[in-house]
């Protein structure tokens, strides 16, 4: 377990930088996390981040398709917001664990 200091808060993260305690997250911290990925967070970004956090809290397994069906963004827009690996990157910025596969 590592600690990441953002805005003077000591965030507990795993070896890959994912939050181990999602309750430590807030929007200001997200802005700083996003900067490290060269992303300027817009309102759309935040809508996605809150969607991910809500689903995580409901224990719904997350997939790219599910975000694409959220009504917030389609899959293409999701890739544009978080280039590279949208689900991995957005989950990290949303302060939730890396989504894992079931099978």
């Amino acid at each position: 377990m590592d600690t990441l200091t953002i805005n003077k808060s000591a965030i507990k993260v795993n070896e890959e930088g994912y939050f181990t305690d999602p309750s430590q997250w807030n929007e200001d911290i997200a802005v700083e996390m996003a900067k490290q990925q060269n992303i300027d967070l817009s309102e759309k970004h935040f809508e996605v981040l809150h969607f991910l956090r809500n689903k995580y809290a409901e224990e719904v397994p997350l997939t790219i398709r599910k975000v694409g069906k959220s009504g917030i963004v389609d899959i293409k827009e999701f890739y544009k917001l978080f280039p590279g690996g949208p689900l991995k990157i957005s989950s990290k910025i949303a302060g939730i664990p890396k989504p894992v596969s079931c099978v």
Partner: protein
Amino acid sequence: MKKLLILGAGTAGTMMLNKLDKKLDKKEWEITIIDKDDTHYYQPGFLFIPFGIYKPKDVVKSRKEFFPAGTHFIIDEVDKINGDDNKVILKSGEVLTYDVLIVATGTTPVPSETEGLMGPLWYKDIFDFYTFEGASLLAKKLENWKGGKLVINLAETTIKCPVAPLEFAFLADAYFTEKGIRDKVEINYVTPLSGAFTKPIATKMLSQLMEKKNIHVVPDFYLEHVDNDLKKIVSYDGMEVEFDLLVSIPTNMGADMVANSNMSDEDDLNFIPTNKETLQHKQHENIFVIGDATNLPTSKAGSVTHFEGEILIENILSFINGKPLEAKFDGHANCFIETGFGKAALIDFNYTTEPLPGQFPIPVLGPMGLLKETRINHMGKLAFKWIYWHMLLTGKSLPVSTNMSMTGKKAPKKEENKEKEEPQQEEVLL
């Protein structure tokens, strides 16, 4: 008379029918099973058809052949379930009522979900092998194919039998080697996962095997469309892979009936939200869901269905007798992985324990190697066809424990644990 209705007469439905027939009092209960036709496919056999190992006729039988005497069988399609009124509406307009409903409507590849997949090249240079038609047509294609770029692509992460695409790649390698044209075939395995498989230790073993067999893995590729003119697949973030022959594992979806009944999960894949331990429907307590139709976080595979069946029969009997549902499913899955040249690997896992190396003890058949290629595993895979028709469908218990056992397994050492964290072996979807 009370009514128990089973929707779907595939692996799960037929197995439950046979189990219930033995347990329910016929003076009290009437059991009805519904399917759209009378053709039962041995789906694990589809994998072998493209390579001529099985002929199409080897995998087809009548559904009725596996029903107990006196079964009430309706051939019709289910339009929808009305869970509030305990009614099932059929396409013909007939309305059936039930006291207990079992949904076993499975999953089907839906190539039309992806733009261009069913374009001009469909069944010319683009094939699936998870359907009888696709596997049979691909067999003809491979017979005369002279080589080129073979691309195996998974359109989505949730698919039926998640090891079958790997097996296809291994068998293709063996097939072209034996034909003497392996040097003319480039095999690309293009997947939305971060590696060859989902779970870290199995992914490591399978990745090494892919490398050894000169099968190139393209990870993190999430298919957006198929370009029929330029013969390439294109991902959402603009990656492109060219093909001469595309073997697609299309998006898998549950039955249309699920969407009509407003029972689909949130990603619109028509899998039914189901209690992962009791197999009870999340909204309706007298509806149970089994097999590929559920949204359970485990493999969609026959072995899973078999283990679920052992749990579900207990829970249905408890439900009928007004007792709490005490049997709990642990997500147990057990899969042979054909690796070509007469060998196979075997994996055994559940919701919480990933596939581990070691020995898998099966009474009578003997120990089988876990996560390693052996001939006896291959013999086990072939023997499974007989077991499927004669034991699994007829609801008999198999000599394998329902809950996953750690007997014979080697838990990972510290170093191996550490390797788990390396990006190549992540347990990540995308």
